[in-house]
């Protein structure tokens, strides 16, 4: 698997990370304009310096229970396959360097719906960080066209 630098963030107390290459910027969450007839995890649109950017609510996207709403949610502007989206998370922690050896594959025992988005598990200094696959977080092109 691809070692390198990863951005670590927290959603509902759990730690997740994304490859730093996919991250364009981090900004504080602003009010969104909701888009009708869209999936629940899709929070709405914001104006990112002239780009109309869709915001995905990661709690809902990953199927986590929104126990405590974040006080200051953060938007990670990420890019995948030429598409740009904003991922709303609770808080951004740090950037970590990970070697191949530190990335484990997902446990074979079922871990629920979240499995679909997880590429691997980073295990360093007793932290368990799920490495997310950015391309799987975005809605499929085809499905969205329907």
């Amino acid at each position, binding site marked *: 698997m691809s070692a390198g630098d990863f951005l670590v963030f927290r959603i509902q107390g759990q730690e997740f990370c994304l490859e730093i290459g996919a991250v364009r910027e981090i900004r504080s969450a602003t009010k969104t304009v909701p888009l*009708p007839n869209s999936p629940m995890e899709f929070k709405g649109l914001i104006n990112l310096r002239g780009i109309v950017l869709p915001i995905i609510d990661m709690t809902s996207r990953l199927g986590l229970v929104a126990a405590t709403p974040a006080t200051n949610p953060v938007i990670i502007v990420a890019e995948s396959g030429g598409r740009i989206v904003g991922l709303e998370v609770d808080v951004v922690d740090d950037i970590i360097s990970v070697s191949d050896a530190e990335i484990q594959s997902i446990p074979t025992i079922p871990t629920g719906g979240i499995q679909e988005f997880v590429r691997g598990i980073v295990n360093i200094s007793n932290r368990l960080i799920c490495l997310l696959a950015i391309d799987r977080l975005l809605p499929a092109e085809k499905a969205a066209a329907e």
Partner: protein
Amino acid sequence: MFNQSLPPEVLGPIKVIFFQECDELLASLDSGLEALKQGNADPDTINMVFRAVHSIKGGAANFEFVRLTQFSHSFEAVLSDLRAGRIAASAVLFEDLLHASDVLAELVEEAHGGKVWDPGKTEAALKALAGYIRKEDEFTSAGADGEAGPIPAPEKHWNEIGDLRSWRIVFRPAASLYRRANDPLLLFRDLSRLGELQLELNLHDLPNLADLEPDRAYLGWTGILRTLQSEQAIWDVFEFAGGDCHLEIVPCAVEAAKVPPERLPQVANEAVSSNSSDPQSNRVIRVDLDRVDKLFNLVEELLVQQTTFNHVAGKQLAPEVQPVYAEFRRLSKEIQEGLLAIRSQPLKPVFQRMARLVRQLEQATGKSVTFAATGGEAEVDRSVLERLAEPLTHLIRNAVDHGLESSDERAQLGKSPSGTIALRAYQRFGRIVLEVSDDGEGIDRERVLSTAISRGLIDPNEHLSGPDIDALIFRPGFSTAENVSEISGRGVGMDVVNKCVRALGGRISMSSQKGVGTTFLLSLPLTLALLEGIVVGSGSGRFIVPIASLLETLQLRSEEVKFIGDVRVIRYRDQYIPLVELAAILGYPQISGAHGSIGIVVEDDLGARIAIAVDEVFEQQQIVVKEIQGAYQANHGVSAATILGDGQVALILDVNGIVERQKQNTERAQCYDEESDERVSRWAIR
């Protein structure tokens, strides 16, 4: 030749340009031949056609595309004879020439690294061409026999350019030439630069002073030009006057006699000139579309910023700054319009592709088809043009393959044996409308209905109106083709066409009469980048209603709002139309059941009207359409978004989608009555 002297990194881009030019040349060849076939055998058209083939040959020879060079050489020889009047124009000839142009297009594609075409087909076309060429012309008949015909060698060209020859030029301008601000004097000045020019003024058309109409053209000139330059160079002087005058350029008899007939001098000489001095290349530049688009995006940003500026500071501007700001706004708008004009292109090339497609389909199906295209001069933005060919191709394939009957069947039905496919384009309400119609068997509603039921698309008990049945053919999973044929292909149904059209912000509809024919109507925006709209407010949100679908805005008075069942309606032009709350129709939570006080009456592409209640109506403005990033664009009721002056995102309403949603809501309401128990689950499924 280029291949021997130039490294590949230089050659590559030149080849790219060559193939780009080929596309344009093939297009003008086709349109010229079509015009000739219609009986407009004027010298200008023949010249245009000749030059197109000639230029392709020149390039092909330089890149050593042997088959392409040979073929275009034979083609050109026939056109050259036609131009010189050595062969007579006839319908059969133009038919053969059109066929040759198809083969030429295929050979260009082959040279471009595409599919390798059947040599037999090329041979057959060559034979047909050879039939027209005088027998003594061994140069071309060798090529027609399929042997490696001699490719004109450049050394020969260089020898020939040294010939001092005389040309007789007859030039009779039409009034339109003057109207386009062309000046014969300037043309003569350019001619005299090519060599020694003697001019004679012809006054015999000049009427008496009493009969003279000042805005008509009466003068003509005959000149003798002695020059070392090629014939092409002379024609090129008249490049921009070509359509507005009668023009003859012929070698003078005395001098021409010295030239052996086989040499086809004008052919050989032009090959050199087209490589060295094409005056058009000075006026037309080729720009990578990406560069234009980048610039376009920047201008969009500029306009957004300007709106923001206006919003923030517009009212506080000192009086002396206001005119400066107004000028600044005007200029930005002009830049944007200029850029749009750069990206606009006529539909013609796409229409010509379709004409070629029809000819190919005629061969493949053995059906005889007359193709009539009108409105090709209408211009659309490049973004739209690029994506038009796909839906049109599907529609025309289907029309020829399934729509039209075979000649025998048609004869039995008392129809003309040749079917007609008509492609028509026109602008309406700031959109481009394309009609594809055939005079075939029409679409049988019974069969559509039974197919839809058998495919499980609809419930057998469902009662559908005629247009609703027609609309079924656009549903995914529907295809009336019982035998999947090679032509229409597997799995390409109307749903694909529908999807293409919708992705362009367009709508498609179909009307058909059994036994009479079918018409598909596509309505598309002229550009995907800009939109004129009014800003409306509903709840805390701002929305854009495109002007194209807006009929009227009116104050809603509660006494005028009536009910049909539980649907609110208002009277508009002697008709009751549904009144819907914007927030409700979009599925936003309604704020304390408040009703908007302003009604926006809109109309969808099919003429269905609906009134949308909103709270506020703001100004009309030009909206820069922003694609919604990610993959959330497809949405009933919303087509895209924009950014308003205050930086807020506003959704652009799609009236067709809103009407559709209202229909669905009404259907759902009907579900309640029938199956009240399943109410909740139905809602959830939808």
